[in-house]
């Protein structure tokens, strides 16, 4: 039944709230992430910072790697597929991963269409830069939305832009008259029924997480204070000096995001953060966030 399927999918997303989901490339990193308190791990071939540096086509991680990760941790295991690559998604579902990220971090497989996520039993998370994009993905069946930010940059500015954009547009919808919603749906490029739902409820119909450029405990707490319900940390952990300590610190700051004293504690005694790239200095054609339609 369609209704029970989406409830089970968003239900798992509910369980991940208030936590940190960490990118890992092998079983030993997955174990470090789980020990540090990650609520889930994201299995991928290379972290975004390396994809950026090394170039080439970025694809779904090898099933062998993912299976090794699934064997060592008891928290949910997520994995990424290329935008529109529904067969990679079928493979991951057959493998038994708990969540699929249809991600702009990998090289897109389809320049017009995303995966029809209603066809799957496994839940999907998708990136969005604004409310229209978020609602298009939800219309296709996504059970969880995250900001795109700019993955692999270590620069939080884009995640902040996307969070503010989504949350600001939601607030605007709530004060609009019923007769204004169709024109707004057209402007957003979003399904009308979903626009009405958001206008009525004042929130997305699925959880709303942050991703893309989070490198420090303060970055994580910033996203949470701006309205994100959980954070994804990609290159920020395993590209830093002491991944285990940084992972624990980001987890702590995310739980206590409203308490500056705890965020201070979490920020102390950390090694160097990932060096990072100023998003303004990245060539337009190298931006990952513009992938997705």
């Amino acid at each position, binding site marked *: 039944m369609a209704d*029970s399927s989406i*409830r*089970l999918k968003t*239900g*798992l997303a*509910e*369980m*991940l*709230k*208030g*936590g940190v989901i960490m990118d890992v490339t092998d079983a030993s990193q997955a174990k470090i992430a*789980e*020990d540090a*308190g*990650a*609520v*889930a791990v994201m299995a991928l071939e290379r972290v975004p910072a390396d994809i950026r540096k090394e170039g080439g086509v970025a694809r779904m991680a090898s099933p062998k790697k993912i299976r090794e990760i699934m064997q060592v941790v*008891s*928290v*949910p295991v997520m994995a990424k597929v290329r935008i529109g690559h529904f067969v990679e998604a079928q493979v991951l*579902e057959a493998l*038994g*991963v*708990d*969540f699929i990220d249809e991600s702009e971090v990998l090289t897109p497989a389809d320049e017009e269409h995303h995966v029809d996520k209603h066809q799957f*039993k*496994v*839940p999907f998370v998708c990136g969005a830069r604004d409310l229209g994009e978020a609602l298009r993905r939800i219309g296709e069946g996504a059970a969880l939305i995250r900001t795109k930010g700019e993955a692999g940059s270590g620069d939080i500015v884009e995640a902040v832009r996307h969070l503010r954009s989504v949350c600001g547009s939601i607030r605007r919808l709530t004060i609009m008259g019923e007769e204004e919603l169709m024109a707004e749906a057209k402007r957003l490029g979003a399904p009308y029924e979903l626009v009405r739902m958001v206008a009525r409820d004042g929130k997305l119909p699925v959880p709303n997480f942050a991703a893309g450029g989070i490198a420090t405990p303060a970055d994580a707490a910033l996203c949470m204070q701006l309205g994100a319900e959980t954070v994804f940390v990609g290159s920020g952990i395993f590209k830093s000096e002491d991944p285990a300590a940084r992972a624990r610190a980001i*987890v*702590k700051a995310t*739980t*206590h995001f409203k308490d500056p004293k705890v965020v201070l504690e979490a920020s102390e005694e950390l090694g160097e953060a990932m060096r990072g790239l100023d998003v303004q200095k990245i060539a337009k054609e190298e931006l990952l966030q513009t992938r997705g339609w």
Partner: protein
Amino acid sequence: MSKQIDSNRRIGVLALQGDFAAHARALNRLGVEAVEIRTASALEELSGLIIPGGESTTMLKFLEAEGMTAPLIEWVKGGGALYGTCAGTILMANRVTHPVQPALRLIDITVERNAYGRQVDSFIGRADGHDLGGDPLELVFIRAPRIVEVGKEVVVLARYEGDPVLVRQGRRLSSTFHPELTQDLRIHELFLGMAARDSTSARHDSPRRVAG
């Protein structure tokens, strides 16, 4: 159902991680304000606490890191009412398997983690026979654990395919499913009754037979 705000009952939801907001909404619909709990000192004022669904390994680490484990156990043993769903049930159990992990030992059950499989095996079931009265219970199981053993002090209030899914021992209540993700408020109502300080049902310790 009672819509009155009861000053006698102050209910907290452990908000370290998980679906604490869904539990708070269920309590709000019953006219009860829910307090988000992130520190040991915040326990003192409460008459009842809900440990939500989420990741039990993560929550265990948080409890340890926050120095909350011992105060929480002490608070429950001092008479605080406790309700755990899914991961909350895993934390409360006396014994946990698959994998074996530390437990708070607050209810005499053995729990097997992820017993039904991974997320693709999550499902919505139904309990026709149960002790709450009225319609069947809708059971939302998400990467759910299974209660594989219950001690003789534990009362089974609902079963699914023979396995206990809702159990009670004194003022402690555990479910392996998620009523907070449904419209059904009966289990939260039951818990509010258990958390009322003057409740005569608070000492409802004797084992009983269960339907189903």
